């Protein structure tokens, strides 16, 4: 697709990824950390689709489907861990879970 150059698409993906990484590093609420991870995975998928559109192949879209399946599995296990953390510690602060065998 010549209408949208690949560079601008990749720059948008990079900005979205950086925002997700910033959220993971800054926020201590574990639900916001999971949301930021979703943003980062989504940005990676956007980069795949932009690169696939550059060469006109299907491979970028296929990779996005795999990222989608992986994100679904990750978010189900992650949210289950959030529920367990809240039941055991009574908070959603990621720093509260600082002990193994807690």
């Amino acid at each position, binding site marked *: *697709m010549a*209408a*949208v150059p690949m560079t*601008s*698409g990749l720059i*948008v993906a990079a*900005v*979205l990824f950086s*925002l*997700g990484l*910033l*959220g993971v590093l*800054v*926020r201590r*609420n574990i*639900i*916001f950390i*999971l*949301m*930021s991870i*979703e*943003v980062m995975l*989504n940005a990676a998928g*956007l980069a795949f*689709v*932009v690169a*696939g*559109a550059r060469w*006109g*192949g*299907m*491979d*970028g*879209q*296929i990779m*996005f*489907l*795999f990222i*989608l*399946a*992986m*994100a*679904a*599995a*990750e*978010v*189900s*296990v992650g*949210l*289950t*861990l*959030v*529920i*367990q953390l*809240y*039941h*055991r510690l009574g908070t*959603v602060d990621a720093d509260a879970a600082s002990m193994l065998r807690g």
Partner: protein
Amino acid sequence: MATTFYTAAVIAIAATALAIFQKNVVHGLLYLIVSLLAVALMFLALGAPFVAALEVIIYAGAIMVLFVFVMMLLNLGPPAVDQERRWLPRRTWIGPLVLTLVLLVELIVVLASPGPMIARSMGDPRQVGIVLFGPYVLGVELASMLLLSGLIGAYHLGRWEPERS
């Protein structure tokens, strides 16, 4: 088409930044849904309608519903109703509403434009499916195993064991 892409990109970046720096989880989820819808429109502008539909259905649909469901599970009891009332005042809806309206106008403009952009796309669902179950069939098997392990893991971790807490 480039205008559509850049407008959706600006909306996606703004909504993501607003989502990450909200104090409230529900407000952040609202902005994150807008961000995912904007990314879906970017996919449509890039000529990937199948992936755009999947983005709306699975990301903005299923995964965000999981988040909202967990938020409901974590806030049990009568105080949750008052909390909900305090969490969603009218002005909370203004930001996502404006961004979503811009997206809707953009989508209408794209659909009403005379040039058929789907025809020039880089792959309809049929072609994507042929490639997915052709050279990438091993990846499909691996994805199914990953989803099964995610299901078993979520079931195992989700059991509530009061004697150990």
